[in-house]
């Protein structure tokens, strides 16, 4: 709470930012919701159709395809970013030299525009000329696996998910590393003296202590994956067929290629509801877990104290 009581000055400082924010973020949300009840092809009059767009959506096969594709995309991206990120963050805490350099370099992929990354992966996946991936497969004697990864229905979804996962792994590693080194060493030094193994310290002490960071990164990562767009759109634009269609690429196509602005908005509203729901559910899960954890730690402490007294 501040100290200046001047109301006029308050408004003068607040309003420019607030108005900009409302115009850029909230006006579009309101408009999207309104449009999601309309039928409109871009020209002529908007026609109010009630829930028709929503009914269409729940009967749309491509919508379900995109939804389940998005789930697979999400699993691949999230597990790459968080598991690999966390794994290397842990490894890095045991290093003493060149840590800053390694961190700096790990981070580089997320500085590069998605268009460049797409180009990079396109050339790696390609068969003509033989891309890096196929070359490596040939070298290690798996020549039979050589294929055009982006043109095959069975491989295209992982192929568009991996670049996105790769791009941000380093960033999550840096976040986890920062959280791990900020822990008070005296906590786990004490456990070490008590004879706890490194593994026990890691899973029983360090992981619970950085739980908040894990929740936050998970939130970021999940909402990020739910709105994934750039790389799939640029690499395959949902193809072949709808094999790599995601929610937002489908929305984009419906609105800007087929000019179904109403239906596109319905899909956009679905994406925003989905994102907010995920954040909400995660918070729920983590708080109940937290309470359980606290109880468990409390018990543990009492038991240990008793043992100590003997």
């Amino acid at each position, binding site marked *: 709470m501040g100290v*200046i009581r001047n109301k006029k000055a308050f408004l003068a400082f607040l309003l420019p930012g607030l108005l900009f924010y409302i115009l850029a973020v909230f006006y579009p949300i309101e408009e999207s919701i309104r449009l999601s009840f309309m039928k409109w092809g871009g020209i002529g009059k908007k026609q109010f159709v009630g829930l028709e767009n929503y009914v269409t959506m729940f009967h749309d096969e491509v919508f379900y395809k995109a939804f389940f594709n998005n789930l697979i995309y999400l699993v691949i991206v999230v597990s790459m970013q968080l598991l690999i990120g966390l794994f290397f963050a842990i490894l890095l805490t045991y290093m003493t030299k060149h840590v800053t350099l390694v961190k700096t370099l790990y981070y580089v992929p997320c500085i590069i525009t998605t268009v460049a990354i797409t180009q990079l992966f396109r050339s790696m996946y390609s068969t003509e000329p033989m891309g890096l991936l196929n070359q490596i497969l040939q070298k290690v004697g798996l020549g039979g696996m050589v294929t055009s990864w982006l043109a095959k229905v069975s491989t295209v979804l992982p192929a568009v998910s991996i670049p996105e996962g790769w791009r941000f792994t380093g960033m999550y590693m840096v976040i986890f590393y920062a959280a791990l080194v900020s822990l008070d060493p005296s906590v786990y030094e004490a456990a070490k003296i008590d004879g706890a193994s490194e593994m026990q310290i890691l899973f029983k002490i360090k992981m619970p202590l950085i739980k908040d960071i894990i929740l936050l990164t998970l939130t970021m990562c999940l909402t990020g994956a739910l709105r994934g767009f750039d790389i799939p759109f640029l690499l395959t634009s949902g193809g072949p067929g709808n094999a790599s269609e995601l929610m937002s690429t489908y929305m984009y196509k419906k609105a800007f290629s087929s000019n179904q602005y109403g239906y596109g908005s319905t899909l956009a509203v679905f994406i*925003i509801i989905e994102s907010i729901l995920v954040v909400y559910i995660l918070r729920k899960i983590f708080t109940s877990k937290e309470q359980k954890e606290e109880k468990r730690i409390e018990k543990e402490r009492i038991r240990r104290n008793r043992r100590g007294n003997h």
Partner: protein
Amino acid sequence: MKKKIIKIIFAVLIILFLIIQIYPVIWLFVASVKPTVELSAAPFAFPKSITLENFSKVLSDGKIGMYMWNSLKVTVISLILIVVLSSTAGYALSKFKVRGTKTIYSFFTFGIMVPVQITLIPLFIFYSKLGILNTSFSLILPQVGFALPLSVMMFVSFYEFVPNELIEAAVVDGCSPLRTFIQIVFPLARNTVITIASMYSILIWNDFIFANTFISDTSAKTVAMGLKDYVGAFGNVDWGSTFAAIAISILPPLVIYFALNKWVTAGMTMGATKG
């Protein structure tokens, strides 16, 4: 002894992963100086001869310069707006004794959850009604709007460290809220400003989705979009030119990153831990 072996294994793993993370980026630059013939014959081998032909080809038609200029315009104007709007709004929210600041603050932070895709259709319609598609402004509005939640948050959490006594003293001495802001509070926020500016300069420079939606004129294209164009123009065959164009366009963010590394990571990490 055992400990040492484990440490070596860790180091090897870290280096292997480092290669996975960094090799593609290095390869991008290597590919850009390779002659096209060599690039199609052995794209991933080290170049036998170095050529700057790709670069001169890309630079000669002047398009990339125009794209970079457009990106620069959007980035700089957006950055100025982000810093000005969020530093003032943050000041209002943390240093004024007015009711409702908490509600407005959570209203701002709610924006972090909003996916940018939701704005595309409404803003596209709004812009075409006003006839401002294909202008820098059409990109600046959403860029600034979506940067505000996190930047306001960062300024508010910094201002918490500025003691209220300092501001009280200034007010007692007859200093107006505006002067207090310009002469006392804002100069203290130097680190926050650099953090926000460095992080968003990279994010805005790299933006694809807004540019792809609101820009279709070649003369208004930004670098990220222009790159896509390059690929098409050379029919996916002339990889050399494509990589030269990519190398040129990712250089500015990389320079900013390596120069202001500490601030960029601080910003992005804070974005994560505060979100």
